[in-house]
């Protein structure tokens, strides 16, 4: 192990002040069912996705970055980009920001916001979003994302398929399920899931920043926009083609008899 990685592990050991216990030689930390796995660019917090492990905080509209895991559908993950910690990353200021973010993750993991958190002024968040950042075109399809703000809510959302036909054949729904699963495997941080109502289902992508420490939002917001754009651009065309019953293809007439493995299954 080189000096740089030793230094990195010593810095991550600051998590111990939050009650985390080092494991795997300092490559991971654990606290009350939450495992932190630092990587070069991400701090990944992970919990069991079974109903007994707490509220289902990984669905659209829930506060925080919790979502289905990239590698394992049976876990929930909270993907924190380390770039938000600033150029020094794990220097003193970075450690303070990291502690605040971990606290954010732990609170939203329990389905609540950090004590006293309120949404910053909408204009402050808008100033962090690049011009045109919430407009995406892929082929003939254009989607407009939205910034959602309320006193207890801060989120960025994109409709991918705004309205899925209620009569969409089951095989096509399974293709859409598989596309959602593939998107979650490919991309971090962003939730992608079915939304809308039973009568008018939709497929949406979301990054929920509710509860995020204010001091990281100027760096986190553009990263969130970027993450959303990657996912939406990747998924927009295929999801809409599959959901469009006017596009006839034998491909969509059949899908696996067995369901895609779901979390907690």
């Amino acid at each position, binding site marked *: 192990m080189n000096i740089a990685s030793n230094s990195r592990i010593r810095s991550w050991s600051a998590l111990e002040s939050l009650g985390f216990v080092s494991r795997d030689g300092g490559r991971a930390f654990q606290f009350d069912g939450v495992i932190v796995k630092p990587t070069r660019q991400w701090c990944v917090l992970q919990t069991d996705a079974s109903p007994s492990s707490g509220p289902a905080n990984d669905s659209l509209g829930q506060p925080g970055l919790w979502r289905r895991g990239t590698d394992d559908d049976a876990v929930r993950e909270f993907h924190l980009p380390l770039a938000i910690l600033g150029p020094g990353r794990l220097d003193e200021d970075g450690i303070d920001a990291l502690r605040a973010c971990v606290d954010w993750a732990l609170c939203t993991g329990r389905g609540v916001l950090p004590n006293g958190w309120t949404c910053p002024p909408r204009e402050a968040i808008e100033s962090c979003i690049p011009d045109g950042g919430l407009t995406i075109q892929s082929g003939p399809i254009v989607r407009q994302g939205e910034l959602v703000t309320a006193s207890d809510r801060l989120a960025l959302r994109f409709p991918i398929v705004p309205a899925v036909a209620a009569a969409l054949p089951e095989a096509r729904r399974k293709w859409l399920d598989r596309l959602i699963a*593939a998107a979650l495997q490919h991309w971090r941080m962003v939730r992608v899931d079915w939304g809308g109502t039973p009568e008018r289902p939709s497929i949406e992508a979301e990054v929920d920043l509710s509860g995020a420490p204010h001091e990281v939002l100027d760096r986190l917001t553009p990263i969130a926009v970027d993450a959303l754009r990657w996912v939406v651009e990747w998924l927009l065309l295929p999801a809409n083609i599959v959901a469009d019953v006017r*596009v006839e*293809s034998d491909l969509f007439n059949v899908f696996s*008899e067995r369901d*895609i493995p779901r979390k907690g299954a």
Partner: protein
Amino acid sequence: MVLTANSKRTKPANDAVLRRLPSVSLAGPHLRQFEMAMTTMCGDPIWRGRKQAEAHDLLALSQVAPDGRLAVMSLDLCESLRALMILRVPVPCRPDTANRLPLRDIAMLGLTYPREAITHHLPGYAFVQILEPRSVWLPAVDEARQALCLGPDMPVGIRVAELVLMSYGALSMQTTQLDERDTAGVFNPESALWWQQNADRIPLSRTPFLRQDDSMLGPGRQR
């Protein structure tokens, strides 16, 4: 004027690509996609084994290709091998009234590889459908269903990755068939005549599927 077809068979460079695909180690999302597809695979042992190999090579091709060249969006191995893919390649669409040729830069393809493909010759239009864009303007694409014809009939046991490479060649017109009287390979005679009169535009791209510097055996790309 009748322009004869380039060889419909893949070029030697493609053969080299195909030989090496089985030794590529899948990584990152490609590996996870492979593992997920395997969980729902059905069929007799021979067909399962073949689908496993074909799925591996298809995802390996996506992994070693330049970023964005080939994205396998969804893969189903339950019955036929079915894949939903996005291929970054110039795609011509029907010219407008001023004879301007709209070019799109991606094609969304649906690929179906049935079990019969490993035991029988299947026609060249049996595998690939262009789902997007619409109004594709190629002699080898029928206007209604947009099936892509890759040749009169395909060799028994043709590989899925080869079908993808052939599709890339056909869409970019690096391989093409412009004889409007050849009913075996031309689905759209009107388009064939148009391309005969605009042969200077062929091919739409000379970029090979893999660049020279793409390392076939290098580490897998990660997000």
